[in-house]
């Protein structure tokens, strides 16, 4: 069995485009889910009762339903309901964001709740407002504690972009599928894809570990 790398080198632009889309989708959905997740977490922690219930239902639903199903439904079914046409990238972005935001919200919540109540009491005693306490005392400590979990979520985000291949988003997985099918050289192409994903993901997980060790003491109270 010979390993013919020419299929990779001949089509490197095609594959590089896929990597670019992967990174773009991961970054966009990562950022969006961080933002949405924060709002959701605040609603759960500080919102009215009905909001708390709605949020818990949303979060638990995202824990129950696979990403694939969310993405497929967003791409095929949502347009029927809303009458809007949707491009694959947009559908993947929305699906991923909605799914990941639920996990992000839980990370925010756990982080905020893990800061000792004494910190809040001390701040109140000093005359700070609740918003100030959250912003200046609790969140900074909480954010440090959330780092490992968010790092893990980033890793999941990048891996889940590969699922967007199912709705024909031209990210790396899809490009690899196409190339493997056309060239009849699945071993070389998929091995390359594995290498590419590994090289993207491994530094992310290691980097988060390192960063956390560096700043861990800031989160201890």
């Amino acid at each position, binding site marked *: 069995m010979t390993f013919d790398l020419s299929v990779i080198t001949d089509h490197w632009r095609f594959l590089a485009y896929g990597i670019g889309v992967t990174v773009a989708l991961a970054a966009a959905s990562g950022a969006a889910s961080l933002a949405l997740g924060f709002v959701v977490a605040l609603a759960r922690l500080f919102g009215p009762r009905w909001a708390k219930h709605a949020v818990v239902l949303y979060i638990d639903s995202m824990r129950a339903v696979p990403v694939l*199903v969310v993405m497929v*439904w967003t791409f095929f*079914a949502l347009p029927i309901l809303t009458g809007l046409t949707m491009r694959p990238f947009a559908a993947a972005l929305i699906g991923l964001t909605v799914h990941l935001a639920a996990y992000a919200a839980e990370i925010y919540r756990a982080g905020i709740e893990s800061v000792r109540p004494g910190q809040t009491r001390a701040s109140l005693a000093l005359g700070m407002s609740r918003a100030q306490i959250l912003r200046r005392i609790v969140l900074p400590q909480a954010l440090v504690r959330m780092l490992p979990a968010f790092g893990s979520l980033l890793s999941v985000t990048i891996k889940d972009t590969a699922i967007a291949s199912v709705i024909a988003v031209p990210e790396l997985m899809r490009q690899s599928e196409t190339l493997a099918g056309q060239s009849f050289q699945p*071993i070389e192409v998929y091995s390359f894809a594995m290498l590419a994903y590994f090289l993207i993901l491994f530094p992310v997980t290691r980097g988060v570990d390192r960063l956390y060790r560096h700043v861990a003491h800031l989160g201890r109270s």
Partner: protein
Amino acid sequence: MNFDWSVVGAHRDALAAATGTTVLLTVTTMAIAVPCGIVVASLRLYAWAPLRAIATAYVELFRNLPLILVVYWAFYVLPIATDLRLSPFATGIAALALNVTAYNAETFRAGIGSIRRGQLEAAMALGMSRTQAVRRIVLPQAVRRILPVLASTWVSLFKDTSLVSVIAVTELAYVAMQIRAQTFRVLEMLTAMAAIYWLLGYPQAKLVDWIQRRYAVTE
């Protein structure tokens, strides 16, 4: 915009069978991945350096690859590499098991490693052998820490079975999307698919919460 929800009822047998396949995939994979995970974790903890390195490399590799890619790779590469012609179902199991074993190995390793050394020392100071100390003192405590994570992995696995649909394994996602293609009732079938996953997954998620509460570790 007209909806015909009867299409779901009309295909309920196919959907039920597909759901069964999903459950079967989950159970079979876990049945393989738990013992294998224990083996790999033991290698990482106790074996001599080269074996430890291989075990670590395996875990790091599969934790840093998208599962859907592993599924495709298993489908196209395994037959050529091993000369076996595996059914899509078996290929799906292979890919899922490779993936979940790696996660389990990490869970077991971290669980055992999280038990303070002092516990082992206290047991040995009382005259217990290492084996006795591990079996009666370290493992019971480790299990309490491992169980919630394992439960969480189970639910993730349940959702991940949807990914083997890409190699035409007749589980829920594949069958639902086939029916959609045949009947053109897109919204109905996809919503039904989501609903069935939700009905099965929601209680599992709640069960995981309960397990985590019950086995919460208080030092």
